[in-house]
């Protein structure tokens, strides 16, 4: 996917002015949050399980090379072919080679974000292979001229049912439906013949299990099962970091993933797929391929951003992010939106091409609090901000201002003196109203709202006064 993150600010302005999008975001914003809150209440061991999950992910990442070899050995033993790809182009080349080898003309796809990263659909189309997205959300997007997803687990988070209804009527030539059940039914009927006639199924992978050489797929719709059961060939494309050691570790992570993602205690279909169809079997793929992808992940191993590789792609961070919930996923300009995307996009695509993303956060730490594998997202965003300054990617004036601030902050007496002057100046500026309509040094802050003025005294002054009063009280 072509990155657009360098245009973040312009895209945000568009999205804020888009009243249809704003309505849709308002309508859905609290649904995932409420469901997650309820689902974790039903599991008193949630916090202890989060800690265990963090340990499982770290165990893999700390010895990732050996875990990958263990996975490869077991997957090969079960009859699958394990391939490795350094980037999206290699993913596309490998998939096209597999398609040519097995004479595949039509591909049904279960959701794969790595396929979005790689621009796989365009590569398939260019080679004359028809890709059909089968996750309802992804299907809607493909139907709408290959629109990009706006959420990692709910790709059409930004669309209302009316928009889907209009799209289906136009593209399927069927009467307009207003009911979501009827829309899902229509998609089922459109996609069923595609499943039955496809030569290849492509899936992502929620996890790869080293012990058994399996890929785990977690879906509600059953399209993951369809793509991996009906066609002759199954290709699973996943990042190298998706390894989980054992089946027991997988069970632990499965207590967190659906709860954090959709607020379900379990997703409808959890499938472990291992190797190829046995001689006596009457269904299942005859050929199975794994493509283990780097695309920026290897460079994070054992570095200051390794914690990001723990991510299990649940989407909880974006569901709870005030920025994401206000601007929507498309504003971020690449495959992964929200806090996890603001960390991953600069790391995978280059900090200079996603310069505003680490700053698109209020540092409220909602994302860190809900992350099922305890990724300290605000810390990672702050590290990226530091890098921007170090690499001189931010404007000269901003760098100077930050340097000046750091110099003052390291001198407590000077800081106190300046802060007291600043507080009095702002109080004077605000006058009777106690609000400032236009702040000269930071006009952006007051362009859409008034700035509440300080009361005239700093926290340190108030604290000193109270301490003094308390001492006096104690003497009496």
């Amino acid at each position, binding site marked *: 996917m072509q990155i657009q993150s360098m245009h973040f600010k312009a895209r945000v302005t568009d999205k804020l002015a888009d009243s249809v999008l704003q309505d849709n975001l308002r*309508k859905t914003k609290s649904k995932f949050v409420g469901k997650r809150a309820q689902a974790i209440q039903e599991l008193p061991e949630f916090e202890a399980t989060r800690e265990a999950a963090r340990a499982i992910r770290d165990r893999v990442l700390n010895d990732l090379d050996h875990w*990958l070899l263990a996975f490869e050995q077991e997957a090969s033993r*079960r009859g699958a072919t394990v391939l*490795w790809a350094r980037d999206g182009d290699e993913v596309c080349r490998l998939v096209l080679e597999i398609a040519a080898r097995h004479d595949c003309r039509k591909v049904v796809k279960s959701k794969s974000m790595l396929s979005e990263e790689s621009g796989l659909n365009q590569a398939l189309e260019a080679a004359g292979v028809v890709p059909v997205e089968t996750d309802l*959300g992804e299907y809607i997007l493909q139907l709408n001229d290959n629109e990009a997803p706006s959420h990692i687990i709910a790709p059409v988070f930004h669309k209302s049912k009316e928009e889907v209804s209009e799209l289906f009527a136009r593209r399927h030539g069927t009467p307009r439906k207003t009911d979501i059940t009827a829309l899902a039914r229509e998609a089922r009927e459109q*996609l*069923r013949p595609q499943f039955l006639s496809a030569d290849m199924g492509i899936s992502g992978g929620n996890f790869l299990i080293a012990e058994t050489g399996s890929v785990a797929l977690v879906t509600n719709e059953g399209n993951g099962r369809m793509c991996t059961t009906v066609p002759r060939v199954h290709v699973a494309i996943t990042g190298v970091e998706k390894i989980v050691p054992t089946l027991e*570790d997988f069970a632990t992570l499965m207590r967190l993933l659906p709860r954090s993602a959709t607020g379900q205690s*379990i997703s409808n279909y959890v499938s472990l797929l291992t190797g190829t169809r046995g001689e006596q079997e009457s269904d299942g793929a005859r050929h199975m391929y794994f493509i283990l992808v*780097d695309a920026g992940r290897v460079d994070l191993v054992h570095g200051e951003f390794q914690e990001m590789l723990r991510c299990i792609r649940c989407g909880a961070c974006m569901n709870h992010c005030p920025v994401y919930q206000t601007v929507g996923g498309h504003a971020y300009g690449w495959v992964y939106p929200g806090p996890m995307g603001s960390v991953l996009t600069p790391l995978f695509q280059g900090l200079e091409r996603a310069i505003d993303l680490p700053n698109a956060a209020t540092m409220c730490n909602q994302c860190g609090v809900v992350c099922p594998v305890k990724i300290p997202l605000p810390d990672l965003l702050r590290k990226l901000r530091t890098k921007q300054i170090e690499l001189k990617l931010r404007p000269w004036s901003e760098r100077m201002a930050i340097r000046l601030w750091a110099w003052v902050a390291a001198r407590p007496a000077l800081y106190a003196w300046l802060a007291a002057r600043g507080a009095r100046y702002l109080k004077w500026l605000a006058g009777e109203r106690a609000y400032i309509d236009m702040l000269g040094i930071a006009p952006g802050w007051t362009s859409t709202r008034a700035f509440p003025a300080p009361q005239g005294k700093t926290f340190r002054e108030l604290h000193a006064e109270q301490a003094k009063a308390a001492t006096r009280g104690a003497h009496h």
Partner: protein
Amino acid sequence: MSIQDSRADMLARMRSRLGRNAAQDAEAAERVAAALRAPVPAPRPPLPADLTACFIERALSMQSTVARISVMHEVPQACADYLARTCLPPTAVVWPQIAALDWAGAGIEVVARAAQGEDLTGITGSFCALAETGTLVLCSGPDSPATVSLLPETHIAIVDASRILAGMEEAFALLRREAGGVPRSLNFVSGPSRTGDIEQTIVLGAHGPSRVHLVVVG
């Protein structure tokens, strides 16, 4: 570099980033082998006292329907009753594993094979079931094709109450014991297929069955 070199290149870069010497590398290999030999324990929700009751309660909450009978030979009649009640024709594709039950005696016409697109009802057994989440555990195999629980609009599954286990961990232990590991396709099925993609509103009936009926025996 050719694509064949990708594996070597990716592994080499991982190793150089991890910065281990030969002795540390051997330790890493041993850590992996040890973790594979003995899984690391993790917190578990407490076990319910009555696994069957818990399974049924959770299965209902996942929108499965449930009938409870006492012995295996009542299964065909329980399936026939369900099909009649749901206004479905008395025909089904079944797992070869359960083909020997007296389906004709209950008036159901069955074929034992993998399912096809036009099959309306699929009847399967189950490897075991999980109380924690109301989940069926299905293993693919020559006598238990995976499509039977997937393609038909209605899925009826037979659950042996004595094989209702607490959670996934117990199912994995049983698989290792009885089958020597995981089958080609291991499916944990919890109720009818559904989607929440449009306006985060969950509706039943996506690509898999829109009805899942459990016949619990014992």
